[in-house]
C-alpha cells in the first residue's frame, strides 16, 4: 500500500466523520403542531405573522432592545407565540413569510440565533414586480 493510499483512507475517514457531524446537526422543517411535540429540539418552521392580533409584533426598544416577541400562524392554521432575543428585524411587519429556526419551549417558540429569522419579503436584492406595478399604476 502506498503512502498516498493511507492518506486517502485517512481523508475518507475524516470526511465521513465530518459528514456525520453535519447530518447530526441537520434540522427538519416542522409545522407548529409537530414542533410542539418535539419540545426543546431545534427545528425550522415556516409561518406567517398572525394578523388576527392588532400588533402581531411586540418590540419595545426602551424597556428591552434585545427582545422581540411575535405571534405566528402556519398554513395549517396552528398558532404560536415566538420570541427572538435580538432587535426586531427591519421590515418584519411587511414580511409575507417567515422561516424560523429555534426550539419550542412549552407554547413559545424560542429563537436564540441571530440568523434564526429569515424573512421572505420583497426587499433587499429582490426586485418586486408587484411593487413596481403598483408604482406604475398609482398617482
Amino acid at each position, binding site marked *: 500500500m*502506498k*503512502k*498516498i493510499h493511507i*492518506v486517502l483512507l485517512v*481523508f475518507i475517514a*475524516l*470526511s465521513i466523520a*465530518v459528514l456525520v*457531524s*453535519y447530518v447530526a*446537526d*441537520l*434540522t*427538519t*422543517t416542522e409545522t407548529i403542531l409537530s414542533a410542539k411535540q418535539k419540545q*426543546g429540539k*431545534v427545528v*425550522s418552521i415556516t409561518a406567517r405573522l398572525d394578523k388576527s392580533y392588532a400588533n402581531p409584533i411586540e418590540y419595545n*426598544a*426602551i*424597556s*428591552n*432592545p*434585545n*427582545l422581540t416577541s411575535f405571534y405566528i400562524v402556519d398554513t395549517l392554521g396552528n398558532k404560536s407565540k415566538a420570541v427572538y*432575543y*435580538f*432587535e*426586531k428585524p*427591519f*421590515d418584519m411587519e*411587511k414580511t409575507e413569510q417567515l*422561516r424560523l*429556526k*429555534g*426550539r419550542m*419551549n412549552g407554547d413559545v417558540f*424560542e*429563537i*436564540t*440565533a*441571530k440568523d*434564526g429569522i*429569515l424573512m*421572505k419579503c*420583497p*426587499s*433587499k*436584492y*429582490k*426586485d*418586486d414586480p408587484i*411593487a*413596481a*406595478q*403598483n*408604482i*406604475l*399604476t398609482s*398617482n
Partner: protein
Amino acid sequence: MNYIGEHLLPGQLGRFFILLSLVASIVACISYFKSASTSQLEEALSWRKLARIAFITDCIAVFSVFGILYYIVSAHLFEYFYAWNHSSLSLSSDYLLSCIWEGQEGSFLLWTVWHCVLGLILIFKAKQWEAPVMTVLSFAQFCLATMIIGIYVFDLKIGSNPFLLVRDHFQDAPIFKTPDYLSLPQMQDGQGLNQLLQNYWMVIHPPILFLGFASTIVPFAFAIAGLWKKNYSGWTKFAFPWTLFSACILGTGIIMGAAWAYESLTFGGYWAWDPVENASLVPWLILIAGLHTQLIYNATGYSLRPTYLFLLLTFCFILYSTYLTRSGDLQDTSVHAFTGAGMNWQLRIFLLAFVVPALFLYFKRYKSIPSIAKEESSYSREFWMFIGSLVFFLSGIFIIISTSLPVFNKIFNTKFALGDDVEFTYNRVQIFVAIVIGIITAVTQYLKYKNTSRNYLVKKIVIPTVLAIVISVCISLFGAIDYNKYGVGYLSAIHVAIFAAVYSIVANASYIWLGLNGKIKAAGGSVAHIGFGLMLLGILISSSKKEVLSVNTTGINLKFDPKSKERSMENITLIKGMATDMGKYMTTYQSNDSSARNGSVMYFKINFTSKDSSESFNLFPNLIRNTKGQEGFSNNPDKRHYWNRDIFSYISYADDMDRSEDTSKFRSVLAGVNDTLYYGNGLIIVNKVEVNPNNGKYQFTSADTALMADITVISKEGNQYRARPVYYVKNNQPQYIIDTVYAQNLAIGFSRIAEDKKLELQVKESSRMLPFVALKVYEFPHINVLWAGTIIMVVGFVMSMLRRARQNKLLKV
C-alpha cells in the same frame, strides 16, 4: 399607438448587437472547432482566420451592448425598464455603473465583457493553443449571449433582454393607454439603486469578482484542449501564469466582497458563510488546489491527473455557483441570493453543457494522462504539496455540500436545513483545515522537490519553528484569546490554529533568506504564503476576539434558555441627549439628521467618550430609505478605524422608523402619601414627600422651597422603578420638574399641593417618550491583519505570475 418622446434607437441598436454577438460567437465557436480538428495546416489557418473575425465581431458587439446600456442608464432614459428599475436621477455618476450590475442581465453582460478581453489577449498569446482554447471560450460566449437575448420560442423564454421598455414589461398597465405616458410623474424618475449597493465597494467588487469568474475559463479551456488534442502536458507551463492570474483575481474579488459585507451589511462581520459567499469561495479553494498540483507537475511530473480534475472542476463550480445564486433555489437560506427570473432551466443547461462534456472527456482520457508509477518520497516537496491541495479540495467540497442542502432538498423532496448555529457548523471543520494548511505551507517550503536530506531540513527549519512557537505562545498568553463559547476543545483548536498561522508567516518569511538567499524575484510563492498566513491569523484573532461593546447594562434580566449559547443582549438603547454607560465608553445619542441625496439617508450622531476622557469621537451610523417603492429602511454601519482595531456600530432600531405623532396628554390625579394609582402597565405608589431634597439628582438647600415626591412604579412584569418629580417655588412662581420612567414610557409631574395634603400629580403615558435609538457596537481587533494579508497575498501572486511569464518567454527563445 404612437408614443411620444420615446428614444427607441438605442434599444433597437442594443437588440441588434445582442443578436450579432449570439451569431458571431457561435460562428467563432464552430470555426475554431474546425480549425482545431483539422490536420491540414492551410485549412486550419483559414478556419482560424474566419474564427478570429467572428470573435472580434463578437467583442465589438458585446462592448457596444455594454456601452448602449450604460448610455441608457446615464442618460436616464426611463422608458427602458433597466434604467427605470435600477437607477434614478439622484444617483451620483459613480453608482451608475453599479446600476448595470444590479440586475441579472447586466452581470451576465459584465461576465461576457471580461471573456472578450481575455479572448482578445489569448488570440495574441495562445499560439498553437488558440484554436482549441478559443473554441471553449467562444462556446461560453454563446451560452452567455443566450442569457440576455430575451426571445420566446414557443412560449419558452430564453434569456432576459436588458433593452425591454417599461411598456413591454408591464403590458397591461393602464398608463400606456396614453401616448404621452412619459410625461406622467411615475415615469419621470427611476426606482433607484438598491440602498445596500450604494457603497463604493459595489462599484469595484463586482467587476473584479466577475473578472475572477471569467478568468477561470482559461485554465479550464487549456485543460480541455490538452485532453481533446491528447497533448496532455504541453500547456501546463505555458498556462501556469493564467492559473495564477485567475487565483489572484478571484481571491481579490472574494475579499472585496467580504470588505463590502463588513462595511455595509450588518452580518456583524466580513464573513457569514452565506451561501452566496460560499458559492464563490469554493471554486477558489479548488483552483488553489489545482494551482499547486500544476506547479508540482511542472517541477516533477507528478500530479497531472489531479491537475486536470481540479482545473476542470473550478470552472464547473463557477457555473454551479451561478446556478445556485441566480436560480432562486437558495432563497430559503441566503440573505442575498437573486430571485429566479424564470431562467432556471437555462441556468441548469448552461451548467450541464460544460460539466458533462468536461467530465466525460476527463474520464475517457484518464488512463492515457501520463502519471509516474513510482511513489513520491515523504521528504519531497511534491508529496506534501499534494496533501495540501487535497485538503483545500476537500475543504471546498465540505462547504459546497452544506451550501447545497436546498438543492438536495429539491432533488430528493426532503426538508432539511442546517442547525441553528450555521457559522459553527462551518467553523469547526474549517479550523482544522486552517491548522493543516498553515503547518503544511510552513514546512513544505523547506523541502526540496524529489528528495530532501534530513540534515538539511532540520538545520533550516529549526530557527523558524522556534521563532513561531515563541511568537504564537506570546499571542496565546498575552493576547487574551479566551473564546470559550464552544468549550475548551474549540478554544485549544483556535490556539493551535494561531500557531499554524504564525508558523506559516514566519517560516515563509525566513525561507526568503534561508532557502532563497534573499532572491526576492523568486519569492512570489513565499510572499503569497505570508499573505495567506496573515489572513488566517487576522481571521482567527478578529473573530475569536470580536467583542460586543453595546452590552445591555439596563439591569433588566432576561431569562435565557440555559441551552442557548448566544449572548443575546447585544443592543443598547440610547435616549437622545442622555449619556449611557457602555463599558469602556459613555455614549450619547446627540442628534439625527436626514440629509444627503433627496433626504433618503438618516444619520444619527453618536458620541463616544472613553471613561478616562482620553478620547472622544462621533460615529454616524445611518439608515437608508429603501428604494424601489418599498417602505422602511436598511441600516448602514459606521466605524472608527484604529491601527489595531475597529469600532463598528449600527442602528438596530430607531423610533423615527415608525414615527407617529405623540398624541397622549398629561392627566392630573390626586393622591395622598401611601396611595396607589393605576396606569396602563401597572401601579404608581407615592411613598413620601421630601422637603428641599439634596441628593444625587437635585441639590436644593434650606433657602429653597421645594418638595420632592418619592414614587415607586411597579410594572405588570414586576419591575420596580423610582420616580422623583419635584414641585418648587422660584421667584414666587410655582414650577415643577417632570421625572420620566423611560422603561415604562411614563412621565410623572408633581404640579401642586391640593386640599387634604393631597398631591396633584400629572401622569402621561406615551407611545413615544423621547427620541431614542437601539444601537449595536462591536469591536473587531486586528482586522487590519486580514486586509494587509490579502494585499501581501496579491503581491505574491503578481510576483509569481511575472516570473513564470518571463520564464515561459525565455523557454521559447
